């Protein structure tokens, strides 16, 4: 596949090691990725995959040609804290100081595709028993430095922590700390259940979210039902099993599939089904390679100590660009209706998603046994080369609808994506005056079919780019050629500069 000569290799390596905007570690990761991509794609990759990769209908999200671990892993930290670890030479912790340090050590020793932990646990569940036996002020000081440690030493925005659904001293302290710390790592989700999460706690979380873009809200009952009671939210907003994870996330650019079709009939009868089949076959090939050939599931210490288990992993079947896909098909059919504003266009969007959902349910992969041997649908948030491609099923930035209409439209689509979906509504500072009002809107959204929702205050330093946080101040530094700790900032440059994230409609109340 790869016919690259020595001079080209030298040139590529030099470009990486001479890049002023990368730290030493970030250069190391880029070098490793470059080396990995000299490998061929997995053996049973279908020929059609290369054609669809080239014409941009399918995107493998730069996972590498020969991944040597699963993409997302969600270690069972609860089990770790109970049993300790012989690999890490740690006894089970007996107090908060030990628990926090044990977790930090563990985070440093999780090495998967992204080289940093995309899930660092349900912090309140993990730490509450230790927190309540300490003086609150002391516990707060330890948690403060725990969060600072995560922000500065993990340094990737796709590292996700969970809290909730019930209130706790730990979650309370974390919600107090976030506005003060203004950190972009970890990403955080409140598992929200209107029955279990009291309004005052949810409102506190919303005030924190306005000030620090964290936490987002996940509808607990949906993820429990579709993923399992022991679910975790990892990376951007990915619902997966704790003790498991996802082998791969591959995505179809639906807008490209529509572009390459002759019209609505051709789209359903030929191009879409072809893209679905090809993506599924490619994922099968990749998963087989990771499970059968690579060392990861055989020798990684997390597997050996029972902190992850192969049979809890799944493949994520991603899509992007539903908005543009629908609009392109409408244009090809000479119809003026558009995604978002028009009922018939939204109906077409639903029809497309039902088609893909049916395909995914019919396709079987023997290594996804926790999910009836099915892949899970994922509304991917976007990546490089996504010109004119909106995340997942989201309405394009610049085409936003009035708030309630927009939420209802999103509610038509969220249920298709148990392994990840979300909408973002920034509000102006008046929302801080009356968080109970914002909670009413969130509750209304969950009643309207929305499963995952996030907000931030439009003029703050921290913003949610697509599904992860960055500091605007970090973006400015990278634009000026400076390196910053958070390695995701360079990824955020493209969406912020080219995909109008800064122009996302800020709602006033």
């Amino acid at each position, binding site marked *: 596949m790869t016919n690259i000569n020595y001079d080209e290799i030298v040139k590529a390596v030099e470009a990486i090691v001479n890049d002023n905007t990368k730290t030493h570690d970030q250069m190391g990761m880029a070098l490793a990725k470059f080396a990995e991509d000299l490998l061929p794609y997995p053996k049973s990759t279908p020929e059609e995959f290369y054609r669809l990769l080239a014409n941009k209908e399918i995107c493998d999200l730069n996972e590498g040609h020969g991944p040597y671990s699963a993409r997302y892993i969600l270690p069972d930290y609860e089990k770790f804290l109970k049993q300790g670890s012989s690999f890490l030479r740690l006894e089970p912790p007996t107090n908060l100081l030990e628990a926090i340090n044990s977790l930090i050590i563990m985070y440093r020793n999780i090495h998967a595709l992204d080289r940093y932990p995309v899930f660092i646990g349900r912090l309140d569940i993990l730490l509450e028993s230790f927190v309540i036996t300490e003086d609150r002020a002391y516990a707060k000081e330890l948690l403060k430095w725990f969060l600072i440690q995560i922000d500065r030493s993990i340094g990737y925005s796709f590292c996700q922590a969970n809290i909730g659904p019930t209130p706790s001293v730990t979650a309370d302290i974390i919600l107090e700390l976030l506005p003060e710390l203004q950190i972009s790592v970890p990403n955080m989700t409140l598992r929200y259940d209107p029955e279990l999460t009291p309004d005052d706690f949810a409102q506190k979380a919303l005030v924190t979210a306005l000030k620090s873009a964290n936490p987002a809200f996940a509808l607990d009952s949906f993820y429990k039902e579709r993923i399992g009671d022991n679910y975790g939210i990892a990376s951007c907003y990915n619902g997966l099993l704790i003790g498991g994870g996802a082998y791969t996330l591959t995505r179809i650019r639906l807008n490209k599939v529509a572009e390459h079709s002759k019209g609505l009939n051709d789209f359903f009868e030929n191009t879409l089904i072809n893209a679905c089949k090809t993506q599924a076959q490619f994922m099968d090939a990749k998963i087989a390679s990771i499970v059968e050939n690579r060392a990861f599931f055989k020798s990684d210490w997390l597997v050996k100590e029972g902190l992850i288990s192969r049979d809890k992993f799944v493949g994520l079947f991603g899509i992007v660009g539903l908005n543009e896909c629908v609009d392109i098909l409408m244009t090809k059919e000479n119809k003026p209706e558009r995604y978002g504003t028009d009922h018939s266009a939204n109906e077409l969007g639903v029809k497309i998603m039902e088609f893909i959902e049916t395909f995914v349910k019919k396709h079987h992969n023997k290594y996804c046994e926790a999910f009836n041997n099915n892949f899970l649908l994922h509304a991917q948030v976007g990546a490089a080369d996504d010109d004119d491609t909106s995340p997942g099923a989201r309405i394009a930035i610049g085409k936003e609808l009035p*708030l*309630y209409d927009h*939420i209802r439209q999103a509610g038509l689509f969220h249920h298709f994506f148990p392994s990840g979906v979300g909408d973002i509504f920034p509000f102006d500072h*008046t929302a801080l005056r009356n968080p*109970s009002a*914002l*909670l*009413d*809107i969130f509750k*209304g959204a969950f009643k309207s079919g929305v499963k995952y929702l996030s907000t931030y205050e439009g003029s703050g330093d921290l913003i949610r780019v697509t599904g992860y946080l960055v500091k605007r101040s970090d973006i400015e530094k990278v634009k000026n050629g400076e390196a910053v700790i958070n390695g995701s900032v360079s990824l955020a440059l493209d969406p912020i500069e080219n995909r109008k994230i800064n122009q996302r409609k800020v709602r006033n109340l």
Partner: protein
Amino acid sequence: MIKAVVNKIIDHSVVDGVGNRSVIFFQGCNLNCHYCHNPETINHCYHCGVCVTHCPQKALSFQDDKVVYDRLKCVDCDTCIKVCPYDSSPKTALLSVDDVLTKIKQNIPFIRGITLSGGECTLNATFIKALFKEAKALNLSTLLDSNGTYDFTLDPEILDHCDGVIIDIKAINAHIHQSITKADNQLIIKNAQYLAQIGKLTEIRTVVIANILDNHHTVDQITKLLAPYLTISPISYKLIKYRHFGVRKKYLYLQEPSDDLMNELQVIAYNNGFNDIILI
């Protein structure tokens, strides 16, 4: 079918009672406060037609000697409001209870309730009773935002389906009140006390102006008067900084208060037993 002239309906508001609420602004007020921030809601349209000649979008026209407003042509430049010689607006609508309900229903499940404001909402008492009854059937909470000039003791029925009332306390000193609103304040204060007694005074509000008003006296006296009822039902106190925005030119001599003054007033209210005090 009862109808009322409505200035506008806001789908979501965070500043008109607890939670997210839709707010219905009625046209017409029986006070004429110097510092009114939306003076175009004070009077009903006299159909004089001054606005018709000035509208740059030709969104206003005369039909049968009445000014008719075309919402589709309007770009909300508000020229009509600026040129109106009568503190009114041609952009109002005569709506039935069903019309208002249809609009509100579109905002469920995102709103906790509705707040009726104005102008002065209580000038439409019969309409309010019918609307609140229907809103309750929809499980919505119901608030009135009133200037306090409607004698609630004489018409308790208006409160049957009303969860609470927000009352503006402009000044305690009768002379000052008279000079700034052209009306007496005795009934307003009596209403505040009555509503607090029966646990239906949700909030009181005072606009603070650096000159003209006796702010310290007003805040001190009203909180002392109402403090005994705080145990019946909590009352929040919103102290609103006067701002020039929207105020008629001839009243622009009014001055914005300093933050220090706002903080002093907050302390007075707090010392008199109020603990939910909002400064905006």
